[in-house]
C-alpha cells in the first residue's frame, strides 16, 4: 500500500513538474530575443504603460506572411518592409496635409532613396534604360556597403520562378522579365546590370510612367545574397539584415515585430521614434480597447458598430485609399452573359444608401471602376482619371429613380419584363459581417427594383477565393486595391485569361487597347487608350459593377505628429514625434 502510495505521488509529481517545466520554458522563450518589451530605449522618458516617450506602438493585422520583400504579399507586411528597407526611390513627407486626416497626417511624395539621381535614355530599339546612381555611404544594418550588385541580385530573385513571388509582375516591364517568370529564360538574362558598384541600370521594354513608383515598391527593395541564402533569415534579429531606416529588434510570432533605428542608415539623425512596435493582433474589440487604454498609438481596425460613434466624436480620421469594392458578374454564364442584364443589375443599386447606411466610413459611391485619386496624364498636377473619364451612370441621389426606371427597361429588353422568367441566381460572398450587410442590401434592391430573386451564400475565405477564381459562381463580391498609382493597376487584370480575371471577361477590343497602352510612349495618348479600355469594359460591356471607392480609417494618439501616408495604404511612422 505504501509503495503504491509513493508511486502515485511520484507520478502525480512528475506530471505537475512536467507542466511547470512547460511553464518555465514559456518564460524563457518569451525572452529569447534581445531587448525585452519593457526595456526603455536610451534617453527615453518612461510613461505609465512602461514604454518610453519616443516609442510608438501600432497595429495593422496579425502575423505577416513574410518580412522578405520578394515574398511579402500584404499591405501590413509592406508597411513594415517600408520601415526596414529602402528602394532606389522612397517616400517622404511632402508637408501637405492629407485630406480628411484632421491634421494628423501628411501626404507622402516620391523622392530618390538609395539612388541619389537617375538618367533616362531611349535606346535605338525602342527600349528605355534607367541609370540609377547610388548614394555614397549607403550601408546594410550590419555595416556592409549596399552595392548595385545587390539590386541586380534582388531583382533577378524577384522574377525567378524559384522565388515564385506573387509580385514578380511588378517588374514585367523590364526586358525578359515575363519569359524568366514563365521559366523560359534564366534570371541572369533580366534587363538589369551593374557596370560598377554605384551604378544600376534597368532596361524597360518601353517607358512606364509609374516606373519610379515601382522602384519604391516593397517587392523591389534590395536584399543581400549571403543573407537570404539562410532560409530562416527573417525570423531572428541576428540574421535579419536590412538597408532601411530601421532594423529588426524583436520578432515574436503572432505577438510583435519591433524595430529600432538602423545606425548605419544615412538619414539616421532625422529619424523620430527610438522604437516602432507593430503589435500583431486581429481581434477588433481588443484592438480598440488597446487604443483607448493607451497601449496602442495607431489602429485601423475596430468593430463595425463602433465606427459611427467614433466619427461622431471626431476621433476617427478618414483618408483616401485607392481601391474599389465591386460586384463581379460571371460573364460566361447565363443570365449574366448578357450585357443588358448586367447593366440592369448595375443601375438598380442605390450606392448612396450603401455608403451612408452600411459602410459609414466616408466611402464614395463609385461611378466607374478606376477609383478617384488615380492620376491621369497630368500626374499629380491635373485632374484625376475618374474626373477626366466621368461617371458611367449617375451616382447622385436624385437620379436613382431614373436609374431604376432604365434598369427595368433594360431587363425587359433582355427578355425578362418585371423580372418574369429570370432564373433564381446566387450572390456569393466570403463570411464577414460587413459583406453580409451589403449582400442583403443588394438582394433587396434587385428584388424591389427588378423583381428578380437573388439568394445569398457565404463561404469561408479560402474556399471562396477558389470558387471565385474558378468562375464557379453567378455574382460575387470582389475588391481591388492599387499596387501603384496608375489606371493600369485596375485595368490590365481584365485581359483575356488573366490570373485575377474573376469575371472571366474576354473582349478583343479591350485586349488590344491595353496592349497599345502598354507600348504607347506619349502620356496623353496612353491615358486616352486606358479611358477607352474602361469605356469598353464598364461603359459598353458592364462586366463589373462598382459599388464604392474605399477609404482608409484610423485612430492616432493625440500626442503624435509627423505621420505621412500614400493612398496606396502605406503609413510611415519614421519621422513621428510625441508631445
Amino acid at each position, binding site marked *: 500500500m505504501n509503495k503504491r502510495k509513493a508511486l502515485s505521488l511520484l507520478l502525480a509529481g512528475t506530471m505537475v513538474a512536467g*507542466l511547470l517545466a*512547460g511553464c518555465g520554458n514559456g518564460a524563457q522563450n518569451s525572452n529569447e530575443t534581445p531587448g525585452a518589451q519593457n526595456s526603455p530605449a536610451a534617453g527615453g522618458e518612461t510613461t505609465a504603460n512602461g514604454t518610453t516617450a519616443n516609442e510608438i506602438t501600432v497595429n495593422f493585422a496579425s*502575423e505577416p506572411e513574410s518580412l522578405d520583400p520578394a515574398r511579402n504579399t500584404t499591405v501590413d507586411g509592406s508597411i513594415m518592409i517600408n520601415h526596414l528597407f529602402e528602394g532606389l526611390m522612397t517616400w517622404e513627407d511632402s508637408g501637405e496635409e492629407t485630406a480628411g486626416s484632421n491634421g494628423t497626417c501628411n501626404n507622402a511624395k516620391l523622392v530618390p532613396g538609395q539612388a541619389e539621381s537617375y538618367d533616362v535614355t531611349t535606346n535605338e530599339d525602342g527600349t528605355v534604360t534607367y541609370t540609377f546612381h547610388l548614394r555614397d555611404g549607403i550601408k546594410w544594418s550590419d555595416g556592409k556597403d549596399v552595392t548595385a550588385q545587390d539590386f541586380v541580385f534582388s531583382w533577378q530573385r524577384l522574377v525567378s520562378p524559384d522565388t515564385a513571388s506573387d509580385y514578380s509582375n511588378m517588374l514585367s516591364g523590364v526586358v525578359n522579365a515575363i519569359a524568366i*517568370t514563365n521559366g523560359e529564360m534564366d534570371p541572369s538574362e533580366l534587363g538589369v546590370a551593374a557596370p560598377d558598384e554605384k551604378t544600376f541600370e534597368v532596361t524597360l521594354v518601353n517607358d512606364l510612367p509609374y516606373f519610379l513608383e515601382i522602384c519604391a515598391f516593397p517587392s523591389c527593395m534590395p536584399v543581400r545574397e549571403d543573407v537570404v541564402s539562410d532560409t530562416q533569415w527573417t*525570423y531572428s534579429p541576428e540574421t535579419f539584415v536590412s538597408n532601411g531606416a530601421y532594423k529588426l529588434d524583436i520578432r515574436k510570432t*503572432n505577438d510583435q515585430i519591433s524595430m529600432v533605428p538602423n545606425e548605419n542608415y544615412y538619414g539616421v539623425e532625422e529619424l523620430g521614434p527610438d522604437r516602432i512596435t507593430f503589435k*500583431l493582433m486581429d481581434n477588433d474589440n481588443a484592438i480598440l480597447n488597446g487604443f483607448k*487604454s493607451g497601449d496602442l498609438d495607431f489602429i485601423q481596425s475596430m468593430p463595425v458598430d463602433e465606427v459611427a460613434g467614433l466619427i461622431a466624436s471626431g476621433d476617427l480620421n478618414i483618408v483616401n485609399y485607392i481601391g474599389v469594392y465591386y460586384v463581379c458578374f460571371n460573364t460566361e454564364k447565363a443570365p449574366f452573359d448578357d450585357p443588358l442584364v448586367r447593366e440592369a443589375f448595375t443601375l438598380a443599386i442605390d450606392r448612396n444608401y450603401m455608403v451612408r447606411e452600411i459602410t459609414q466610413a466616408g466611402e464614395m459611391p463609385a461611378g466607374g471602376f478606376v477609383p478617384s485619386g488615380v492620376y491621369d496624364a497630368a500626374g499629380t498636377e491635373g485632374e484625376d482619371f475618374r474626373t477626366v473619364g466621368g461617371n458611367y451612370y449617375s451616382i447622385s441621389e436624385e437620379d436613382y429613380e431614373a436609374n431604376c426606371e432604365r434598369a427595368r427597361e433594360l431587363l425587359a429588353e433582355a427578355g425578362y419584363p418585371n423580372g418574369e422568367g429570370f432564373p433564381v441566381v446566387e450572390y456569393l460572398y466570403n463570411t464577414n459581417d460587413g459583406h453580409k450587410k451589403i449582400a442583403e442590401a443588394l438582394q433587396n434592391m434587385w428584388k424591389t427594383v427588378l423583381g428578380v430573386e437573388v439568394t445569398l451564400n457565404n463561404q*469561408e475565405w479560402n474556399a471562396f477565393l477558389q470558387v471565385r477564381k474558378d468562375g464557379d459562381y453567378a455574382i460575387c463580391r470582389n475588391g481591388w486595391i492599387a499596387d501603384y498609382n496608375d489606371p493600369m493597376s485596375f485595368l490590365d487584370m481584365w485581359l483575356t485569361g488573366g490570373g485575377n480575371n474573376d469575371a472571366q471577361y474576354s473582349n478583343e477590343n479591350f485586349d488590344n487597347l491595353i496592349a497599345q497602352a502598354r507600348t504607347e510612349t506619349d502620356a496623353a495618348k496612353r491615358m486616352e487608350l486606358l479611358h477607352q479600355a474602361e469605356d469598353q469594359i464598364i461603359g459598353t460591356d458592364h462586366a463589373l459593377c462598382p459599388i464604392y471607392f474605399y477609404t482608409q480609417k484610423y485612430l492616432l494618439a493625440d500626442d503624435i505628429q509627423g505621420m505621412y501616408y500614400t493612398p496606396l495604404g502605406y503609413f510611415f511612422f519614421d519621422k513621428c514625434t510625441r508631445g
Partner: protein
Amino acid sequence: MAKYILKRVLMAVITLFVVICLTFFLMNAVPGSPWLSERSPSQATIDALNAKYGLDKPVIVQLGMYLNDLLHLDFRDSIKMQKDRPVLDIIANMFPISAKIGVISILWAILVGVPLGCLAAYRRGTWVDSLLRVISTVGISMPGFVVATLLLHTLTGGLPGVNLFPATFVASDWRSYVLPCLSLGFYPMCYLSRQTRTAMLDSISQEYIKTARAKGLKNGKIIFKHALRNALIPVITYLGPQIAFTLCGGFVVETVFTIPGLGRYFVQSITNRDYPLIMGTTIFLAAFIIIMNLVVDLLYKLVDPRINLSKGGD
C-alpha cells in the same frame, strides 16, 4: 501491467496514424489553396509553387511522402504562415504560452472547484449549495467565448473608467494572464465542483464514513481525509483529457485576447491552408491528448487498486 502498457502504447500509435490519415484527406478535400489571396498570383507562379511543394501529385502519393518524412521525424516547413520555417520550430515557439495559460487555468480550476464541490456536498440543501449550483450551472452552460468577450469588454477599457487589465497581450506582464486564465479555467472549475459534489455525496453515504462518524471523528477530517480520496476518482478521469484540452485547445480564449499561442495559430493555419502546419499542430495536439489519456488510465489504477487494467481495462 507491462503487457497492458504495451497494448495501450500500440493502440495510441494506431490512433495517431488514423488521425494523421484522416486529417490529411480532409484537409485536401476542403476547397482552397495556400497560394490564393484577394490578389492571386499568376497561374505560372501557382504551378511553380505546387511543383515546389509537391502539391501537384495525387493526394495518396502526397500522404505517402508525408508519412515517409514523419518517419524521419521531419515535420516539414510552413508554406504560407511563416514561409520556410520548420513546423517544429513554430510549435516550440508558440506552445509554451498556451501551456502557461493552460497550467494556470487548470490549477485555479482544481484549487477552487474541488473545495467548492466539497463545500456544496457538506452543506447540501442549504443556500450555499443552491448558490454554488447556480454558479456552476451558469459556468457550464455559457460558452467560453462569451465569458472571454464579456471580460474583455468590461474590464480592459471598454467601459469608461474601468481599465483594470491590458487589452493587448504582453508576455512579460502578469496582468495579461488574469482574464485569459479566468475565462479558460471557468468552465473546468464549474464542472469540477459539480463532479466533486456528486462524487462526494456518493462517498458520504458509504458504510465506512458512517463508521468514521460512529468513531467520533471530526467532520472536516471525515470529508477531506476519507470521503474526498474516493470522490477524486471521477475527477481524475475528467482531468486528464481536460488538462490536454486546456493546454492546447484554448484557441477561443487566445483568439479573443489575441494571445500568441498555439491554439490561435492552429485556427489561422487552417484558414490559410498551410498544410504542413495544419498537420504538425494536429499531430502534436492529438499525441498530447492520447498521452494524457494514457497517463490518467495508469494513474487511475494507482489511486484505485480495485480497477483491473488487464481485463477490459481499455
